[in-house]
C-alpha cells in the first residue's frame, strides 16, 4: 500500500496539533509497512525522515503546459474567492500574485514556462492563495509518483487531494481534524465551509478525529454517515525524563488553563469557575496561559470579580515553558466549547496532572481517567476542580492510571484503523 499524503504542517515547525497528528499517523502507518509520500508546503530542512519520503513542495517544478492543468483549474474555480489577496503588495508579493493571476486568468497561454513556487509554509493573510497554489503543486506530484490512495489532512489540503484524484483516478481520503464550526462557532466563514464540504463530498472516505466531529460532518455538512469513519488521535510517547527539579514558588495549589484564549477554548467558563472555587477556598491559584482575541476580556472579567490576586495570566507559552507550567500544575482544565480532539490534556496527564475536560471534546471519548463536564456547566466545572484539590483519592487514582492510559493511545493502533479504511476504499482486502 502506497499513500500520497498531503499535510500542511510538520514538526518541528507547527502552529497546532495538526502537524503533530500527521507526523504521528505517518510514523504509525510506516510501522505497518505502508509507504507514505508525505507532501508539505514548505520544508525547513530539519524534519526527521523515518520510513517515508519527504518531498519539499517548494522544490516541485510545475509544468503549466500539461493539459490537465486547465481541467483542474476549472474544477477549483471556487478558490478564486480571493478575499485573502492583500490589496497592497510589495514587488515580490506582486510577482507571486501576478503568476497566480496568469494561472487563473490566462489558462490558454501555452508558452512553455516552468517555474518553482515559493511557499511561505505558514498560515497568513494569503492563505487562500496558497491553498490553491498548493493544489497546483499537488497535480505535478500526483503525476510523477506511484501510489494507491490519496490522503489529505484538513481543509487546507483538500484541494490538493481532489486534484490528485482527478489526475490519477485513485481514491481520496480526507482527514477532518477540525471544522469551521469548531473554529468559529455559528459564524462560519462561508468560503472555508464550501472548501471543506467540497472536499468531503469528493472524497471516497472521510476520517474524523472523534465521534463528536463525525457527528458534525454528518449533520452540518450533509455527508452520508456510511463513508465517515472515526479514528481517534493518539500521542507520541515521550522518552524525556520528567523534570523533577521544577520548583513551585507558591504554596497554594495551581489550576491551569493552557491554550489559545479564543471562543473555541471556553476561557470565560474557566474564569467563572475559578471565582466559584475561590469563594470557598481562597488558597488556590488559577493560571491562564496563552493568548488570543478574548484575552483582554478575560483580564477585565477577573478584575471585575476581584480575584486578581489569585488569578494570573502568563501570555503565550511555548516549548519548555509549557512543560514547566504542567509540572507546576495540580489541575489542568480544558473547558473547550467545541474541540474536535484536544491533545493538551494528554500532555498534562503524561506529567501526572489530573485533568478536567469538556464533554464537547473528542478526547473525552477516549479518556476514562479524567473528569468530564459540559463546558457551560460552571457549577460542575468548579465542583470538579474543587474535588481534585480536596479529595486525595482522585489524585491517587489519576497518578496511578492517567499516565498509562495516555501511553496506551498509540499511533500504530490508530494506523491500523486507517489502513482498514484504505483497504476498504481501494478494494484490497487483507
Amino acid at each position, binding site marked *: 500500500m502506497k499513500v500520497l499524503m498531503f499535510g500542511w504542517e510538520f514538526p518541528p515547525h507547527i502552529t497546532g496539533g495538526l502537524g503533530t497528528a500527521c507526523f504521528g499517523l505517518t510514523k504509525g502507518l510506516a510501522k505497518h509497512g505502508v509507504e507514505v509520500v508525505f507532501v508539505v508546503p514548505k520544508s525547513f530542512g530539519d524534519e526527521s525522515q523515518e520510513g517515508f519520503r519527504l518531498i519539499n513542495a517548494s522544490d516541485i517544478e510545475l509544468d503549466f503546459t500539461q493539459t490537465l492543468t486547465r481541467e483542474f483549474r476549472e474544477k477549483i474555480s471556487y478558490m478564486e474567492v480571493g478575499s485573502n489577496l492583500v490589496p497592497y503588495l510589495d514587488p515580490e508579493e506582486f510577482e507571486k500574485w501576478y503568476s497566480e493571476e496568469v494561472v487563473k486568468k490566462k489558462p490558454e497561454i501555452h508558452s512553455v514556462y516552468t517555474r518553482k513556487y515559493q511557499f511561505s509554509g505558514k498560515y497568513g493573510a494569503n492563505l487562500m492563495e496558497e491553498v490553491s497554489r498548493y493544489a497546483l503543486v499537488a497535480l505535478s506530484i500526483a503525476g510523477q509518483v506511484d501510489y494507491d490512495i490519496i490522503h489529505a489532512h484538513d481543509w487546507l489540503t483538500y484541494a490538493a487531494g481532489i486534484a490528485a484524484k482527478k489526475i490519477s483516478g485513485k481514491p481520496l481520503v480526507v482527514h477532518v481534524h477540525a471544522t469551521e464550526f469548531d473554529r468559529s462557532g455559528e459564524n462560519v466563514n462561508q468560503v472555508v465551509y464550501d472548501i471543506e464540504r467540497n472536499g468531503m463530498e469528493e472524497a471516497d472516505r472521510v476520517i474524523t478525529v472523534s465521534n463528536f466531529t463525525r457527528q458534525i460532518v454528518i449533520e452540518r455538512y450533509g455527508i452520508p454517515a456510511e463513508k465517515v469513519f472515526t479514528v481517534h488521535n493518539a500521542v507520541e510517547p515521550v522518552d524525556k525524563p520528567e523534570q523533577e527539579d521544577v520548583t513551585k514558588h507558591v504554596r497554594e495549589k495551581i489550576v491551569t488553563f493552557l491554550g489559545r484564549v479564543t471562543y473555541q477554548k471556553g476561557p470565560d467558563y474557566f474564569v467563572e469557575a475559578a471565582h466559584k472555587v475561590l469563594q470557598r477556598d481562597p488558597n488556590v491559584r488559577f493560571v491562564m496561559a496563552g493568548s488570543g482575541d478574548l484575552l483582554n476580556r478575560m483580564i477585565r472579567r477577573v478584575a471585575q470579580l476581584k480575584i486578581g490576586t489569585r488569578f494570573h495570566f502568563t501570555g503565550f507559552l511555548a516549548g519548555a515553558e509549557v512543560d514547566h507550567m504542567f509540572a507546576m500544575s495540580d489541575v489542568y482544565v480544558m473547558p473547550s466549547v467545541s474541540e474536535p480532539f484536544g491533545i493538551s490534556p494528554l500532555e498534562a496527564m503524561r506529567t501526572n496532572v489530573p485533568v478536567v475536560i469538556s464533554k464537547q471534546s473528542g478526547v473525552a471519548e477516549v479518556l*476514562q481517567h479524567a*473528569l468530564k463536564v459540559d463546558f457551560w456547566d460552571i457549577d460542575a466545572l468548579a*465542583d470538579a476542580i*474543587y474535588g481534585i484539590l480536596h*479529595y486525595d*483519592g482522585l489524585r*491517587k*487514582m489519576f497518578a*496511578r492510571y492517567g499516565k498509562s492510559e495516555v501511553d496506551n493511545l498509540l499511533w500504530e493502533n490508530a494506523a491500523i484503523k486507517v489502513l482498514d479504511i484504505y483497504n476498504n476504499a481501494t478494494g484490497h482486502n487483507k
Partner: protein
Amino acid sequence: MRSVCLYFQVHQPYRLRTYRFFNIGQDHYYYDDYQNRHIIRRVAEKCYLPANRMMLQLINEFGKAFKVSYSISGTALDQFEQYVPEVIDSFRMLAATGCVEFISETEYHSLACLGNEQEFIRQVETHRKRIEKLFSQTPQTFRNSELIYSDSIGETIGNLGFHTMLTEGAKHVLGWKSPNYIYCNNLNPKLRVLLRNFRLSDDMSFRFSEKKWSEWPLTAEKFVGWLNAMDPHEEVVNLFMDYETIGEHQWKESGIFDFFYHLPSALFSNSNFTFSTPEELYNRLQPMAAISVPYAISWADEERDLTAWKGNELQSEALSKLYSLSDAITKCNDPVILRDWGYLQSSNHFYYMSTKWFSAGEVHKHFNPYNSPYDAFINYMNTISDFSIRVEDCLNAISSVAEKTVKKPALKAKKEAKPKAAAKVQKEAKPKPAAKEKKEAKPKPVAKEKKEAKPKPAVKEKKEAKPKPVAKVLKEAKPKAAAKVKKEAKPKAAKKVKKEAKPKPAAKVKKPAKTASAPKKAKQ
C-alpha cells in the same frame, strides 16, 4: 426429598442528588427525591407488585408446597413507606400465608461489616426487629449486603443467634466441593451456610433473555430437566437473586413471569424436588462440612470478591472517611443525622465509584446514575464533608448542653485554668483510662449484656418513648442552649466535659433515638 431454595433480594438505595461543594455547610438534604420516587414506583409497578401477586397465586394454588424467601433492605422499606406503601401490604399478605421466610440483612444494605463491627451489629439488630414488627416473624437467617461473607463475619452472625447465613458458592472457595449441600461456618459450626448455585441462578437473572445464549429460550421444563440431571445425592439448589430479575432486569416481554409461574408445576410433576426456605433446611438437614472462607467473598463479578466496592483509591478514601465518623456517631442523638448516617452507608454509593466497569461491564453501567466513578466520588465526598460538619456540630451541642446542666463548677474551674493547663490535662487523662475501660468493658460483658438485657427493655422504651418525645427534647434542648453555651465556654472546655459527662446521659438518650423509626416521620 431434595430442595430448591428460592430467595430474592429486594433493595433500593437512597440515591444522592447532585451535591456541589458550595452546598457544603449550607444545605443538608442529600437525596434525589425525584429519581428515587420515580425508580421505586417504576420497579414496584413492573416487578414488586405483579411478582408478589404471582407468588401469592402460586402459594394458593399449591397449598403451601410452594415456598419462597425474601430479604428487604431497610432503605427499600423506607422508600416503600414513603412512596408505594401498597408494596408493604402485599409483602404482608405473603407473610400471612406462612410459606414465606423473611431474611435479615443490614438495615441500610451497608458495608458496615468491613467498616465497623459495632455498627454492623447495630444494623443487623435494627433490621431484625423491624422485620419482626412488620411481618410477625423473627428472622433466623441472615444475608449480608452483596452476599459478602467470611469466616469472621459468619462468626459474628452466629454469635447474634442466627441459624443460617447465605452467601455465594464462589468457585475459588469451593474448589472441588459442590454448592448443593449444606455447610457450616469454620469458626462457629452452629451457623449453617447456604451457597448460591451461581450457574443456575444466573441462568435466570442474567442470561434469561439473552438470545445469543445457546440455551435460549429457557423454559421451566428445561430448567427442571437440569435439576434432574444433577447428582442425586445433592440435597439443595440455592437460587438466590435480585427480586428485580422478575420484570425489571428481565422484562415481562421476555417471558420471565411465565417461567416462574410454571416452575412449581414443572418441578412437582417431573422431579423429586420441593421448595424449602432456609429455616426449613436448618431444621431438616445436617451440614456436610465446614467451609473455610478466610478472605471475604461476594456475589459480584467474575472474581466474587470485594473489589466492586473496595477496589480502588476512591472507594477506600470514601469508606474510611465514612467510618471515621463511627465513634462520633455513637454519641450523637439527632434522628435526622442518624438517618443520613444510615443512608450514606448503602453499598451502592461505593459501587458507583468502581472503575472496574471501564473494562468489563454493562452490569455495572446499568445500575449507575453517574457518568463516571469520578463524578460519583466527588459527589459523595461533598456530601460526606457536609455530613461530618453536622456530626461535629451535634457533638459540640451535646457537650455544651451537658456542661450547662451537669457541671457548673467544672466550668468555672476550667475558665480559671484555661488554655495550656486544660490541654495538658486532657492529653494526659484521655488515652489510658479510656482505652482500658474499653478493653475491659467491651468484649465479654457487652456481648452478654446485649443478649440478656438489651433487646427487651430497649424495645419497650422504644415503643413508649419513640419518635416525638425524643425529637422534641432534642429540638428544644439543643439549638439555643447549645449555641449560647458554646459561645461562652468554647471548644476546649466543651471537649473535656464531653468525655467526663458523656457516657451516662448521652448513652441513655442514644439508644431509643437510634433504633427509633423517627426518620420515617421526618421524611414525611
